[in-house]
């Protein structure tokens, strides 16, 4: 299944991938067990002449333990999964580290516009660079973004960054990421936003620091 997972170029991407793999293996074992036992029982106990069914309604605790103990183990696995997931969520959505680079992502029907804070590091100043459909960021630097919508709800989606965040009109939602290699990657809109939802793409361009600085000055 995971051979379909796109390349991860994000520092926190490893955390997310790690959780997905953990869930996949833990839950996978349970799935195979449950499915396997079901099919085994169905075949093993098919009707045969002269063999009556057992009478086992499980009206007392002892036979019920066959169900309650596995269910308790399921609970423990669930809690372990949550324990692993919680720090990752905190890291990605709550603790925004000090940033090296600032971008405002403006979503509208049906395009992504990016306002990159210029060399002064402040948005809405004269040296900002505004692009449509192309997000430029330097590699190995913390990028902080602010999401705003001009109209309806959109969702900023960069699979390679393992980053998704809804863009809600009336709010400015902040987040961050740190790309780990240069290259060109895809961005899409992950919340139905109207006729052009299916064509609302953009490109993430991760550049070396020097290339990025040069681009910013132009």
């Amino acid at each position, binding site marked *: 299944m995971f051979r379909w997972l796109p390349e991860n170029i994000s520092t926190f991407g490893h955390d997310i991938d790690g959780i997905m793999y953990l869930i996949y293996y833990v839950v996978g074992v349970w799935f195979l067990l449950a499915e396997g036992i079901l099919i085994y029982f169905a075949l093993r106990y098919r009707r045969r002449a002269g063999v009556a069914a*057992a009478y086992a309604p499980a009206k007392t605790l002892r036979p019920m333990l066959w169900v309650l103990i596995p*269910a308790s183990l399921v609970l423990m696995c669930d809690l372990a999964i949550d324990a692993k997931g919680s720090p990752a969520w905190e890291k990605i959505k*709550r603790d925004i580290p000090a940033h090296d680079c600032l971008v405002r992502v403006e979503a509208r029907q049906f395009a992504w516009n990016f306002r990159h804070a210029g060399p002064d590091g402040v948005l809405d100043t004269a040296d900002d660079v505004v692009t449509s459909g192309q997000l430029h960021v330097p590699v190995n630097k913390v990028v902080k973004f602010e999401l705003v919508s001009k109209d*309806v*709800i959109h969702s900023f989606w960069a699979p390679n960054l393992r980053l998704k965040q809804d863009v809600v*009109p009336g709010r400015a939602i902040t987040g961050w990421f740190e790309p780990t290699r240069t290259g060109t990657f895809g961005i*899409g809109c992950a919340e139905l936003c109207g006729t052009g939802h*299916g064509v609302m793409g953009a490109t993430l361009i991760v550049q070396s620091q020097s290339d990025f600085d040069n681009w910013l000055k132009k």
Partner: protein
Amino acid sequence: MSVQAPAPPVEPVHESPSHHEPQTSGFFHFLRTYVFSVDHKMIGRQYLFTGLAMALVGGLLAYIIRHQLAYPGQAVLGHHPISADNYNAMITMHGTIMVFWVAMPILIGAFGNFLIPLMIGADDMAFPRLNMLSYWTFFLSTVVLVASFFVPGGAAASGWTAYPSLSVNGIPANQLGQALWVLAVALEFASMLIGGINYLTTPLNMRVAGMSLFRMPIFVWMQMAATLIFMLSVGPLIGGAVLLLFDVLFQTGVYLPDKGGDPLLWQHLFWFFGHPEVYVIFLPAIGIVGEIIPVFARKPLFGYKPIVYSTIVAGFLSFLVWAHHQFISGLDPRLAMPFSITTILISVPFAIVLFSMIATFWRGSIEFTTAMLFAIGMIAEFLVGGTTGIINGSAAADIYVHDTYYIVGHFHYTLFPAVFYGTFAGLYYWWPKMFGRRLDERLGKIHFWGTTLFFNMTFIPMLLMGIGGHQRRIFDPRVFTYTAPMHNLHLIATFGLYGLLLYQLPFVIAFVKGLVGKRTAERNPWNAATLEWHAPSPPGHGNFDQEFEVHRGPYEYSHPGSEKDFLPQWLPTTN
């Protein structure tokens, strides 16, 4: 609970209005019996036929959607290619129809109405005229919804979730279709609420002597739980829907930020209902399966009381998980962890229910009738749905899979088994009781295997696409660099759907055959122990033709110390 002498009536004696009808001739009699009937069995059939008809519409929409995804830009069914607007309307209506016009009317309206009175030994529901009102309100809602396809601007196109601002003013000229959508859904809710009064009152008040609550079939418990969950969760959404309608028609701005409103308010109201709703759909289905397995394994249901208690716990928990649909929505991040925890906890009572169903097979004597095959299939497929849900429930992992095809795969692996395997299992099983004939078992087996093979072929690719990052509700996968390489997966899924639709033909043939011809089914063709099998096939007015009481629980199969293979509930105990 021991049998007591009947208490003097504190209320006027309930009389089913359909009793002692003067035998008027022809047209009015026809109307009274077949159209405006207050008989729960007729109403159940009405819900069944309407729901199945809407399933055809929903299936047709699925066909068009998948055709577009496999062959973007090409003509569909001889018509011009699908535009992006049409595509959005189709996915919206596909989801809306399947949840509200197929799942609920069939699982609850049809099976619930037909079976609840029979299973508890009653002659009809507590409020038969209310029951009739419920169906006709539903019928009206169906008309309104279908009409929305034909108005200027077309049917609603903002998803079955109808998020503002898109649903309010994000699609120019779609206002009328969206308004009709809101109206249709509101009417459907009203019809289910009206029906729900019966599903809750009848089992509590009209059980035949000897049937204590814990001697009721699990199906009745599940219907009650589903109904209660529905009735307590839908209210806020009804209010919210009225506000949405005002926003659409009058631009009031409850959900519009530039008028002081909040789009996220709708999401909360929607999902506060939307999540319990999936259990409203699942519980009747597992109730059907819980009736079928004991009969064809000749074994009592394993852990009947724990199943009841677990269902109650799960029902309660279902009200506490809704924001797991909103992790990425802009919700305060501090809320993610509490909702992740409640979400993950809810898997425990369901694990108890499912494991108990599986344990019922242990040392059984299993006969693979079509009903049993669909029951096994329902559990087997639902296990995929349930386990794939764990990733969605973990907030951090959900960042990746939210709004991708992984979610689409997940909910089809839960909803399709519940709705379709559950419905088919129930129909193959109860058809003799409903129509006095058997559904063709050979066609049934072909139906089952074809459905299973092609269902998996359709939806496994979607799980993979989701892992690949393919977002939802995209009408042309060629557009994005990371979705274009998944074209083969789209092709497989589309072929899977073609096969899935094709293999419903055996069922259609069996269905038609099962409605015509001589009534040859016996009273209890499956040697089942529950009360509906004590009535004639099909039952007449008043349901039962002999006096009886209940003497034991509903699953006394292969009882040791009994010579008989099974002890039905109505059989008096002998010393």
